[in-house]
């Protein structure tokens, strides 16, 4: 299927205050790929993500989602196709209860009530949080909120999932749960993160951003073995690829 493609061509973006966050960037992500976006703080990850669902418009260059370029006319379809999961779950959960929050997207798509109900229940059970249905979001733990935030997007049946820092602020088990859930998804995944071990677990391909440009793009294993590259881009080898801190033995 060709419609799960994300293509960014010669994208440049300058914020109103004059900072150029993205310079002449080109990426092509094809169906079913799981791609990590890594890079230092301020390397342009978030700015790039905001272009993928049309929240920011390119200064120059184009963004194509599926078979269409992203324009005002295709915005609605693009936003259904690309499910965005934000870094702070509190930003994503704004309705009085989790149920209503997960139903928010499907309702806006104009689906009939029974279909909305079905989708909400599917999304909740997929994330294992049916029991939280009637709870207001501010009574939940960070891990529960994160799963709820993912459910709000799943209910729109997106083809492409875009996640911004899906594991920050979670305890180790919560982090592990999110990773296992994400691994089961067959969607095309784009994950911006500093959690390099997560990248190693989930992503076959890694794109390294540096000062608004693509510094490297390739197999995750190869990228994380290139120490000079990692050093230049303020990154480190994932912990699981480093030697044992007690005996120094390499894996």
């Amino acid at each position, binding site marked *: 299927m060709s419609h799960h493609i994300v293509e960014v061509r010669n994208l440049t973006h300058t914020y109103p205050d004059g900072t150029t966050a993205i310079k002449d960037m080109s990426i092509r992500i094809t169906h079913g790929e799981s791609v990590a976006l890594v890079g230092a703080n301020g390397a342009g990850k978030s700015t790039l993500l905001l272009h993928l669902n049309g929240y920011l418009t390119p200064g120059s260059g184009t963004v194509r989602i599926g078979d269409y370029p992203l324009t005002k006319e295709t915005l*609605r379809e693009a*936003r*259904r196709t690309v499910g*965005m999961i*934000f870094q702070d779950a509190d*930003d994503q959960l704004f*309705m009085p209860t989790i149920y209503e929050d997960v*139903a*928010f997207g499907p309702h806006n798509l104009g689906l009939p009530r029974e279909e909305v109900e079905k989708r909400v229940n599917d999304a909740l059970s997929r994330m294992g949080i049916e029991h939280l249905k009637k709870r*207001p979001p501010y009574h939940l733990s960070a891990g529960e909120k994160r799963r709820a935030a993912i459910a709000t997007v799943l209910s729109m049946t997106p083809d492409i999932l875009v996640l911004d820092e899906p594991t920050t602020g979670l305890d180790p088990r919560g982090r592990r749960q999110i990773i296992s859930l994400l691994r089961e998804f067959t969607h095309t995944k784009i994950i911006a993160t500093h959690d390099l071990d997560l990248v190693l677990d989930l992503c076959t391909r890694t794109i390294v951003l540096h000062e608004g440009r693509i510094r490297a793009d390739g197999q995750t294993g190869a990228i994380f073995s290139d120490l000079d590259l990692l050093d230049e881009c303020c990154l480190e080898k994932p912990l699981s690829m480093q030697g044992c801190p007690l005996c120094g033995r390499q894996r």
Partner: protein
Amino acid sequence: MAETARSFYDLKYIDTLSSLDSPVHRIDARAKLLTTGVFIVCAVSFPKHEISALIPYFLYPAVIVPAARIPARYLMERAAFLLPFAVLIGIFNPFYDREVVMSVSGIPISGGVLSFVSILLRFVLTILAALILMASTGFPGICSGLEKLKIPRVFSVQLMMLHRYLFVLASEAVRMARARQLRSFGGRGTGIATYGSLIGHLLLRTLNRARRIHTAMLSRGFHGEFHQGRPFRMRLSDAAFTAAWCSAFITFRFVDLPQAVGRIIMGAGS
């Protein structure tokens, strides 16, 4: 600043109460809204020296509070917490209005004292009614109730979002205040100058968050309309609830029951 944190957790508590189940919780939000509205209008519309006619209104909290399983102690505490505001409004009345209007077993009572007591009574009544509504309906319920009563959607959505992000904003404010307190020694650094900067930062953070929330809404196809999930059904019992209480309130308003009862007793005695 501990006070900020306290009132914040208090809000959460009233929210927890509203998620319980009781006959009162199950009543349609519109019915409760209307009843509370009529209650408040009736209670505040008495002439300024009225005391005895206000007493029957305590019947409403006395019946509803146990029925809704709201801890009475909590309500008392809340009312006591807010009482200073009412005291401030009425405290000068006894000094301005010294004309003696009645005397109880020889002790003259001035109009000012009467109106002061009247203010306090009305205050307690309205606070109780509002808290009961909040604790038995919940904020989202009140908002959708308002909407069904044809209040413009903009307002109900605004209220709902306000309530949702009150918790986020409050916890942010509490964290900032704590950080400041931990680094200000002997009261230094707690002055108005840092306070201004703190509030400014809070505003900027809020604006940023508002922008992010808007992005999140847009990404999920938001185009200016909210869908409320729960269908509203006004049952006969809900209508009966409103009708019964409202007619009671209006009766209390025009018939001074304590006085009437007093007259009957006196009449029987003579």
